[in-house]
């Protein structure tokens, strides 16, 4: 069998951005369900259909005794004998931390994949950033940009990503506050213990996470048949399999059991887990992510 895998160049975020925009355009505006993050109230673009701090008018109500007079809307009160208080609709902006793995591991593309994994990961992250910033959420990138809300958040993010040399270290998300959402796009192609060990601090902090597994088809299907030496793109470590097809079934079982373990862990902590194969369209994963953001989480107790 001819060699199927190759290592690719690092993706240029700006170039990816265009594709990300295209894909994001096909996704409806993202409504981040912010009900459960009342404590991190912040100005946002979308009303929450209840009174609170915000810019848009919500309702007039009678002024109660003892209440501060500052809230009285005099113009309305002048029309009759009662004093009215003008209430505004509660606007809440949600902070979403994005991170796409850019390690050499990710710069892998097989003949079966449409793009390298790093490309795909960045694409998903930027498309998500586009969606979120379009709907006024605050997006952030660990060690790169703090939560900011702007219409062109994705563009800014792409520019900053291009300008900065990314390191491969798995981020700690130190600045992420409780009830922030984090999106980690990676291949998680390590034994589940190692992945879970990295994720454990994040689980503990009560963050709501979305794991996106970007995977090349060969990594999942293991189509190798002959005497093959496998090498790790990062460490250069080698393993020889005399008859690769003989281990295929075992490998697939191990690969899927790792994935199952991760999905199980994610579920336990109320996180979501999305898979994107580079031989299938990125949109599929985006739609799934969108749904994950939009639907009401089952995690109780936050509100």
């Amino acid at each position: 069998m001819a060699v199927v895998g190759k290592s690719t160049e690092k993706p240029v975020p700006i170039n990816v951005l265009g594709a990300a925009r295209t894909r994001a355009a096909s996704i409806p505006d993202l409504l981040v369900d912010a009900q459960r993050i009342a404590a991190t109230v912040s100005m946002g673009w979308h009303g929450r259909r209840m009174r609170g701090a915000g810019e848009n008018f919500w309702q007039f109500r009678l002024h109660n005794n003892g209440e501060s007079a500052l809230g009285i809307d005099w113009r309305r009160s002048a029309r009759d004998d009662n004093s009215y208080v003008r209430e505004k609709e509660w606007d809440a902006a949600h902070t979403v931390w994005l991170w796409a793995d850019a390690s050499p591991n990710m710069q892998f593309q097989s003949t079966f994949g449409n793009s390298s994994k790093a490309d795909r990961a960045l694409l998903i992250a930027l498309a998500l950033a586009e969606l979120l910033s379009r709907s006024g959420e605050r997006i952030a990138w660990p060690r790169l940009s703090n939560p900011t809300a702007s219409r062109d958040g994705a563009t800014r993010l792409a520019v900053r990503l291009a300008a900065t040399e990314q390191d491969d270290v798995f981020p700690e998300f130190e600045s992420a506050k409780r009830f922030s959402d984090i999106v980690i796009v990676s291949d998680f192609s390590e034994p589940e213990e190692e992945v879970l060990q990295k994720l454990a601090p994040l689980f503990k902090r009560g963050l709501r996470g979305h794991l996106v597994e970007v995977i090349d088809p060969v990594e999942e299907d293991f189509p190798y048949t002959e005497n093959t030496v496998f090498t790790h793109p990062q460490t250069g470590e080698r393993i020889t399999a005399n008859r690769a097809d003989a281990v295929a079934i075992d490998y697939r079982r191990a690969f899927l059991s790792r994935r199952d373990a991760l999905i199980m862990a994610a579920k336990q902590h109320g996180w979501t887990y999305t898979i994107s194969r580079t031989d299938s369209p990125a949109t599929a994963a985006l739609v799934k992510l969108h749904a994950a953001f939009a639907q009401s989480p089952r995690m109780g107790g936050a509100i």
Partner: protein
Amino acid sequence: MTGLLTFGAPLALAGLVLLPIIWWLLRVTPPRPELEIFPPLKILAKVLKNETTPRKTPWWLLALRMMLAAAIIFALADPILNPTAPLAKGEGPLVLVVDNGWTSQRIYEAQMRTAESLLSEAASNNQTVYVSAFIQETNSEIGPFYSATARQFLAAIKPVAATTNKKLAIAKLVSLIPENTTIAILSDGVATKDDEIAFKQFEKSKPSSLIWFASTETPFAAINNVANQAAALEIEIARFGTRSTPVTVTAFDARGRRVGEVTAGFGPGEMSTTARLTAPLELRNDIQYLTLQGERQAGATFVMDDNLKRKRVAILSGGDDEQANPILASTYYVRKALEPFADIVVPQARELSAALTEVLESRPSIIVMADIGVVPETDAPALDKWLQGGGILIRFAGPRLAAAASQDQFLPVFLREGERALGGSMSWTVPQEIAEFSRTSPFATLPIPQDVTVKRQVLAEPDPELARKTWASLTDGTPLVTADNRGKGSIVLFHVSPQATWSNLPISGSFVEMLRLVLSLSQTQSNGSVDAQNVSLNPWRIISPTGTITPAPGFAKPAQFTAAKKPVATYENPPGLYGNEDGAVALNLLASGTIFEAASVPKLNIPVEPRAYITSENKSLKGALLGLAAFLLLLDGLAMIWMARGRPNSHGAVLHKTALAALTAFAIVAATPMDHAFAQTNDAKNGDAEAIEAISKTRLAFIKSGNAQTDQVTLEGLQGLTLFLKDKTALEPADPVGIDPEVDELAFYPLLYWPIDPDAPMPSTLALENVDAYMQSGGSVLFDTRDQGSTSFSLTDDTSPATVRLREMLKNMNTPPLEPVPSDHVLTKSFYLLDDFPGRYKGSPLWVEQVLDTVSGQDRPVRTGDGVSPILITGNDLASAWALTPDGLALYPTEGSDPNQRIMALRSGVNIVMYMLTGNYKSDQVHIPSLLERLGQ
């Protein structure tokens, strides 16, 4: 032959050149693996973590495989290991003396190997060589030779099935060799008489040295003698050396078939033992030679001559009333008693003198005379001569002997005139029983017959010798059996008659035993063997030096046998059987009491150097190397399994490979040529196709009468019945056939229709016998006299010719009692319910075997009874009524006014066929309604 290691096919060693190539090939394979970048390596590593498959074949596996290849190449080169050490000092000419007596067979190879080595040394020392053997033809050349010629002469020296005469041989040798030689004696290690004197003669030729090769350790066993005792063959076996395992003697008959086998062991220090082969006399008679299993020399085989063979017994009787009623014949019981053990000769001549002459010509071992009064004077000398030569005359008393007792010279004792009656209405005495046999009697081993009483006997005159001559006596002391010697033979007199009239001895088991014992005392008198005086007999079957029985070789000369002394086995008179198949005398190598001793090193006044034979063989290492290769292959396979262990899901592939390797190993091991080819025996016989055709379908058959017209009608009738059967029943018979009972097999057909045609010739006896056998073994025959007018089977005169013919035919057959088919017979119910069985006529009843002892009651619609009647007789001409065209139209008119007669005839046929095929099945079936009722719904 000088190197330590030689190769049978040294060119194959060129294959070693291939080793580096094999090395290179092993190094190169397996092909270089693909290098694949694989990010989830750690997951893969988890799965593959135990696999330590190296990218190159490990050095030890490489070495193993190289060894494997080298082993095979060396094995193909056929290496032979022959370690030799210098044997003789090269002083003067070498004189090789090979001891080639029969005891040397066991060490022949060692002798030859040693001799070859000696010759090789002599060749390298430029010595001339003398080659001689202890037993060789008188004028054979012994040298001096050069080494190459000597080899040819050495190759001609083979063990001989004879005992060496060393004294003579050495005397002759010494006269031929020069002085100052090196004498190498290749002794077989067994001492013979005069050894010391024989070897002393070497001093005369003044040799420089004498090398003594001996093999005293190699054990063997030999049969000294075989004695025929009453109950068993006693085989005397001597051994040489300490042989711990017991010896097994196998007896063979003249055709080389194993007759018996017995095993005997040697006690510690015992040099000879006796094996007892217990076998019936008849079986022992058949034994021609015995061999010791596992021994390959002439002494282990012992031939037996005709003295043990089946005896010939002539029976003479005085009366000539025997022929009419054999069971009353005077010789009937004697003949019955002796028949299993001997060949009975009965003279053709009626007249006694002629008969006696006739039987004496046939040289019987025993002549039995039953109640013969006086032997004719003219024949007395011939009979006496026969007796002197070892014949045994058995006489029985009787009225004639009793009358003429005093005149006869061929009696063991003097007899009183007349006989004595014991018991009876006018006597006080009672019939006497047989007393205990005396210890000296040949009958001593027999149990006392308790059931024998003697009512009448002839009495012996009192005589001092009487007690000695008496073999058996009655309880009152009067002799019953007396005997006396005549020369080598003897006369035995039974004082009773050979029939059961005087006593019941002849019909008792003891009688048989007594006669058998007398028989075992006798000798065989074959044509010119036993009492041959100075006859020269040609060798017939010879014991080869390896102990097998072979036809006589060319060098074997006729041997002189004298009555006094048997010849000794020599080179020209090898042991074996001399004579021909009619009678042979055995010449055996050893005599009773032979003890084998180890030969000692001769003590001479010249230096004698005892040496041992080169015992290690020229060992071919081919097998060992191939075995090593197979073992290495196995190791390789095991290594493959070991290396693949922990490699999941690959066991199948590895096992596959291992199985392949094992198969290869088997192929190498099995590469030795196989001689056994098994031919499938073809047991097809003539007529198989016809038989298969006949039995593959049920069909009706008739017996051809020989009259073409009758047969035509019968065939048409059976064809019609066949059509009707196909139409109405589940039976679909094939086309009917006509058969000839003389040649055709009848057993294939369930029913034979036999139309009796008085005009046709009477069937032959053979045909009738065949039909009878067919009927006895379960077949049924339907006889049809076709003459309804005369079916009474009475003895009146108005019987028709057909009935007369049928009677003639049935006279010679076993015909059971017959009856007309009773109304409750199964035949009336086997398919249709019928009252009678009409054919073309209506008047004749159908006769069947009478069913005896049947229960026939009101409540039973059919009588019980097993089996099918083997015979059915009718006179209604069934076949004519059955005869139909293929369209179902009748061919012949029926006699009678009943329009249903034809249909009833066909139904009769159906019932008969069904009865033949199903037997009494229907008689059980008629109970089914009541059975169902009893079962309850």
